[in-house]
């Protein structure tokens, strides 16, 4: 069974949602507190949404120095899956595990609503159960979601196919596709190896039919299919 460590930072608030989403897909979830230093043999790590340290200073800026982050960085370097949703994505960028940064929404307002997104990359541990190009409707809830990076970094992401999920024009009436002014409509990216994925939308909030759709479940279903590589090579 896939063992998934869900990290709890002070101020995280989506960790129960992620935990439940993992368990519903048949995984085994457990919390790891920010002060711990060991991931207890987790197969995968989720940095959940919320407001770690109140998002004071910058979203994710303080959490990334938590003791547990060293272990998360090693886990990532070993090629094992790490995902950050919303605040988790912000922490991944702040810590340098993913390039770029997430700035205040261009509207200057918090935005909570569904958005339509296209899955651009399916060869990651978190998106393999989607079809490439598939459009899903999924909620966002953030004040700092405007993905920003230099043109070189953006070009690199595009050329290497590292944009995992992108805001697109879907069917929503009178709601712009891009909810926050993100560069190139980027909603989520991965590292070149594909094992580290961050995204602003909240797949863990759509893990049940009753909640309008179950479009998010496949993020977790993907993870359940992921197999720990027999041999990890460190180049």
């Amino acid at each position, binding site marked *: 069974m896939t063992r998934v460590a869900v990290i709890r930072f002070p101020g995280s608030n989506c960790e129960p949602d992620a935990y439940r989403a993992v368990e519903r897909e048949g995984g085994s979830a457990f919390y790891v507190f920010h002060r711990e230093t060991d991931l207890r043999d987790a197969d995968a790590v989720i940095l959940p949404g919320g407001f770690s340290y109140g998002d004071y200073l910058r979203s994710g800026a*303080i959490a990334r120095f938590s003791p547990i982050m060293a272990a998360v960085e090693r886990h990532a370097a070993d090629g094992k899956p790490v995902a950050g949703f919303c605040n988790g994505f912000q922490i991944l960028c702040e810590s340098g595990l993913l390039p770029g940064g997430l700035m205040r929404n261009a509207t200057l307002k918090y935005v909570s609503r569904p958005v339509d997104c296209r899955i651009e990359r399916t060869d990651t541990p978190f998106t393999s159960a989607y079809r490439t190009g598939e459009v899903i409707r999924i909620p966002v809830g953030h004040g700092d979601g405007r993905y920003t990076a230099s043109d070189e970094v953006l070009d690199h992401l595009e050329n290497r196919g590292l944009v995992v999920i992108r805001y697109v024009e879907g069917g929503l009436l009178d709601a712009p596709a891009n909810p926050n002014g993100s560069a190139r409509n980027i909603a989520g990216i991965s590292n070149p190896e594909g094992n580290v994925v961050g995204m602003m939308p909240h797949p863990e909030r759509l893990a049940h039919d009753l909640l309008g759709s179950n479009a998010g479940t496949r993020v977790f279903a993907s993870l359940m299919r992921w197999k720990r590589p027999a041999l990890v090579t460190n180049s």
Partner: protein
Amino acid sequence: MTFRIHVRVMPRRGLLDPQGQAVEGALKALKFPDATNVHVGRAIEFDLVAADQSAAATAARAMCAKLLANPVTEDYEIEVEPK
């Protein structure tokens, strides 16, 4: 003449400053224990055309009073720099 105006808007003394507290805590954790009394506010910069330095300062003060700072919760300081 054009001036560059720097405005610093800080939480009024005595009011809770949760951001300042969080940053102070983070600095401590990062082994910068010597930083104390940390406060976080807003920095605003702009170019301003005015007859002279004092006219620029007067205009900037008016902007702070009217818009840039919240008189109930914030104090501000203005620096006027010729450009």
